Each structure stands twice: as structure tokens, then as C-alpha cells.
């Protein structure tokens, strides 16, 4: 098979195209009189950040976590509670969210990473459900009715996340920064170490690798990113409920990562886009969109193990090999 022709250039070109499209989207929607869909696009961005954070843990760390949504929910609650108490500074929200997510992940990770395989899956699930029930019990902040917040995060230079356009661009910025960082991380020394770890942990350990520390670092980093996604989410919806931490939400994030491509930089974005688009398009035609989504997912699991990103890579390889 011939070597792919200038892959970096193609990859870079695709990224540039995506960036231009994302930047121009609000204008396009306005022109088409579809500005309602700006909030849909914003929702895609928030989910993309959350899914990318899961991909860090799953695709690059090899850790199957059924409790990742809890960190997103945690971020939403931290920011939501601050807003409900009258604290509107976005900077405070950001710092508080990141700090609390990091602490929680440190505690949860330190215990969970002592287990492997299905036990790790179950214990991450257990911790997520503990946080879920905790959120249910705090009647002062809504409890199982959820917390409605009227205020929004305010950032310097007059950036108010209540404005749909501002929110979209802030979320886009966060996602772009995330993808950029991830793209730099993968070929770096740390990234290659993580991949070695994921592919053959026993061997890596035998080679003197500090597996536990690496995994914990990835776990905490992913949780912090998930928390940021959560902080954005509560700003977009003006509402957070314990359901955000439920294991089925973690399942949805896993689905996005799978659809997009486990271990691929764009996997989180492509997966979020694919699932939410699928949902929007299908629900316009039928109320049974979950049914068809399930089949698509099943097909991907059974036949396209590397997800849509994997399919795109294969496609590109085939096109370039001509």
C-alpha cells in the first residue's frame, strides 16, 4: 500500500475548513432564519468538550469509566450553586469548578485506579451514583427537582454568557483550545507513554513505568475538562438536575466517543456532532429516534470499531493511495 500523501497537510486543511465553518455558522443560521439552531450548535460544542474529556480517559488512558458524567454534573452544580448565591464572576466559576473537579477526581481516582477491568467500571459507576444521590439530597439547591438559575457567568470585557452568540464563541474557543492541546499531547513524550500504557500495561509496568501516576494524571485532567463542560452547560440551559450525573448520561458520552472514534483527537467532536445531529434529524421524522440511533450504534460497535473517525481515516488512506 502506498504511503499516505502529505497527511499533515490534509489533516491541517480539514481542520482549517472545520474552523472556518464553525466561525461562520451563526451568520449562516441567521441568514437562513434558523437562529433557534444556534443553541443546538452550542449544545453540540458543550457535549464535544465533555466527550473529548472522556476520550482522554478512555482512548488515551484505556480506562473504561461509567461515571464520567458525574464530573460534568459536578461542574454544573458548582457553577450553578455559585450563581444561585449571587456570585456571577466567570473567573470565580472557572477556578472553583476546576479545583473541585480536580479534588474529586483525585479522591475517586486514587481509590478506583487500584482496581482493574470490570471492577474499575463498577467502582467508577459507584462513585458517580454516590454523587448522583448526593445531588438528589440537597433540597436547598433543588434536590431531585433540579436547580434553576436566572443569572449567568460574566467575564471581563463585558462578555456575558447570557448572550447566545457570546456563549457560542466562548464554547468554541474552549473546544478549540482542548483539541489543540490534545493534538500536541498525543505525539509528545507523555502522550506516547500513555499510549504504550494503554496498549500493554503489564509490559509498561515491567519496564518501570509509573502506571498509577500516569493514569491518575489523565483521570484528573479529564475530570477538570469535564467540569468546565459542566460549567458551560449550566450557563446554556439555566438549569441543572441530578440527572446530569446519572449513569445513563455517562453511557451517552461513551456512545459519542465510540461513534466519533476512540483514541482519535477529533473523536469527541465528531461523536457529539453525529449523535446530536442524528437525534435532531430523526426526531423531525419520527418520535422513535432512539430506536434508530440504537441500531446505528450497534452497527458501529459490531462493524466499525474505530468509529466514524476511523472510517474517515480509512477513507482518506484509500483516496490518497490511488
Amino acid at each position: 500500500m502506498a504511503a499516505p500523501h502529505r497527511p499533515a497537510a490534509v489533516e491541517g486543511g480539514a481542520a482549517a475548513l472545520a474552523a472556518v465553518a464553525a466561525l461562520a455558522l451563526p451568520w449562516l443560521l441567521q441568514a437562513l432564519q434558523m437562529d433557534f439552531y444556534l443553541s443546538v450548535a452550542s449544545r453540540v460544542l458543550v457535549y464535544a468538550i465533555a466527550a473529548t474529556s472522556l476520550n482522554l480517559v478512555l482512548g488515551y488512558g484505556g480506562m473504561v469509566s461509567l461515571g464520567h458524567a458525574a464530573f460534568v454534573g459536578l461542574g454544573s452544580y458548582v457553577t450553578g450553586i455559585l450563581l444561585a448565591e449571587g456570585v456571577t464572576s466567570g473567573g470565580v466559576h472557572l477556578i472553583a469548578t476546576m479545583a473541585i473537579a480536580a479534588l474529586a477526581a483525585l479522591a475517586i481516582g486514587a481509590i478506583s485506579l487500584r482496581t482493574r477491568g470490570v471492577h474499575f467500571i463498577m467502582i467508577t459507576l459507584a462513585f458517580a451514583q454516590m454523587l448522583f444521590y448526593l445531588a438528589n439530597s440537597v433540597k436547598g439547591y433543588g434536590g431531585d427537582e433540579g436547580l434553576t438559575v436566572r443569572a449567568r457567568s460574566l467575564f471581563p470585557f463585558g462578555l456575558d454568557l447570557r448572550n447566545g452568540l457570546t456563549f457560542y464563541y466562548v464554547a468554541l474557543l474552549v473546544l478549540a483550545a482542548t483539541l489543540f492541546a490534545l493534538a500536541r499531547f498525543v505525539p509528545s513524550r507523555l502522550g506516547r507513554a500513555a499510549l504504550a500504557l494503554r496498549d500493554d500495561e503489564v509490559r509498561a509496568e515491567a519496564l518501570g513505568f509509573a502506571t498509577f501516576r500516569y493514569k491518575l494524571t489523565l483521570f484528573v485532567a479529564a475530570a477538570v475538562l469535564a467540569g468546565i463542560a459542566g460549567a458551560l452547560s449550566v450557563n446554556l440551559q439555566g438549569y441543572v438536575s441530578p440527572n446530569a450525573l446519572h449513569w445513563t448520561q455517562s453511557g451517552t458520552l461513551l456512545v459519542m466517543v465510540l461513534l466519533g472514534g476512540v483514541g482519535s483527537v477529533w473523536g469527541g467532536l465528531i461523536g457529539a456532532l453525529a449523535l446530536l445531529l442524528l437525534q435532531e434529524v430523526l426526531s423531525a421524522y419520527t418520535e422513535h429516534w432512539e430506536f434508530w440511533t440504537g441500531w446505528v450504534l450497534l452497527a458501529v460497535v459490531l462493524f466499525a470499531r474505530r468509529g466514524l473517525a476511523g472510517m474517515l481515516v480509512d477513507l482518506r488512506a484509500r483516496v490518497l493511495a490511488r
Partner: protein
Amino acid sequence: MSPIFILEQALNGLQFGLMLFLLAAGLTLIFGVMDMINLAHGSLYMVGAFLSAWVAGATGSFLYGLLGGVALTALFGAVLEVSLLRSLYTRDHLSQVLATFALILILNDGVKMIFGTDLPLAAPAALDGPVELLPGLLYPAYRLVILAVGFGLALLLYLLVQRTRLGALVRAGASNREMSGAMGVNVARLFTGVFAIGAALCAVAGGLLGPLLAVQIGMGENILILAFVIIVIGGIGSIRGALVGAILVGAVDTLGRTLLPHLLREFLPPQWASAAGPALASIAVYVFMAVVLVLKPQGLFPVRS
């Protein structure tokens, strides 16, 4: 707190625990024998409830409904196993999680398309009243039936697994699959059988709980997690572990709904106490599971060699 109150709550906890056992037993067998994480197990419980409700509605008899529901669900389980789930046994756990999650989506909407969002299921009218167990303790007849069926099935499963050839095969398969295969056991048929039994147990729970809860879409999602917690606590592949784990979880849940709010009401407003009680009980269950996982990762009654 009067002895009648304690006894009544103990019966409630036991009843809940036994129904959880029915789900956990099937799940632990499937996980133990086939090494498969089946997130769709709660959906089998839902399918069982809907089929029972449908047959009961069509025939006018709760008993026929239950029996019909169990038979149809076992059949459905077998078909599902042969057609789809078989290809997942050799895959990694992540693929199993995702594929069975997809199955949850498909079954939720699939059942909705065929039966609607919920179906009524009423217990037989003869069981609508109470039974006087002790002077002052009137316990609903229907719940006593549930307790009886739960105990009966637990005994039956025990005898099946410990005393029959099928049971021996299951135990062998759970502890060492390659060896059993090498010894000439028809592993494929064994697996289908185990899955069908698991599905049937789910249907019994679904049909029996239908009149108390509601037969509705999504009813399996919360109970599924509890079932997983139970099998982790009890030990994957162990029926005995599933029983012990289920009764423990049932007891803690009932404690949380009753004793804890009493205590909390001393220093919290009633709304907060009522919310915190069940939440703390649920958290306690998960804390317990986490502790077991860290100290005894194979569970309380490990089975694997």
C-alpha cells in the same frame, strides 16, 4: 418503635430484596458463565413486565399473564442470545457495554412502538386485601405471595445449581470456561440456556412488581444498577452471593426510607429529612460496594478459580 413496625418493615425489605435477587441471579449467571456485561438486563425486566401485562390483559387472568410473560420472555432472551449477543462474548468489556447500551435504546423504543408507553397490570382481586399475620399486623396478601414466590425460586435455583447436571455445568462454566469446553460440554447451548433462564427470572420480577409499581418504559434503568451492585458485593457467578447481597441491599434501602428519616427529623425540617434519608441509604449501598471492591475484589462469595 413497636415490634409490629419493625416486623412490617423487615417484611418490606425482604420482599424488595427477593425481587432484586431474581434480577441479580440472572445477571450473575450471565456474567459468571459468559463473562459478559449485560446492560440490557434491566430491559429484559421491562420486556417481561410488558409481556405479562399484555397477556394478562388479553386473557383476563393475572396468573396466565405471569406464566405467559415468563415463557415469552425466556423465548425472547434465547433468540436475542443466539442472534446478537453471541458475537459479544469474545469482545472486550467496552464493546459489550456499548452494544448492550444500544440494546437498551432499541428495546425502550421498540416496546413503546408495540405496546405504548405503559400498560395497566392489576393483581388478582382475591389478593387485594390484607392477611392478619399477628394481632395488629395486617400485611397485604399480594406482598406475601411475592415473598413466597421469591423464596420458592431462590430454593429452586439453589437446587438447580447445586444438585442437577445443568447446575454442575453452569458451575463449571462459571469457574473455568476453557476446561468445560475441552471436556465436551456443548458450550453454545449452555449459554443460550443460561441466558433464557436469566430472562425468565427477570420476567417473574417484572410481572410480580407490575401491580405495585407501574409497567412503563424505562422501568429497568434504575433497578439494573442495583442488580450490578448486588452481584459485585456477592461475587460474580455466585447465586448464594446474589441472595445475600440482595437481602442486604433490600434491608439498607428500607432502613433508609424509614429509620434514617426518623433520626434526621430531630434536627432537619421534614422535607429535608425525607429527602436525605433515602439518599443516604443509597449512598451507603454504594460505599459498601466500593469497600468490598477494594478489600475483597472477588466479592463475598467468590466463585472463580
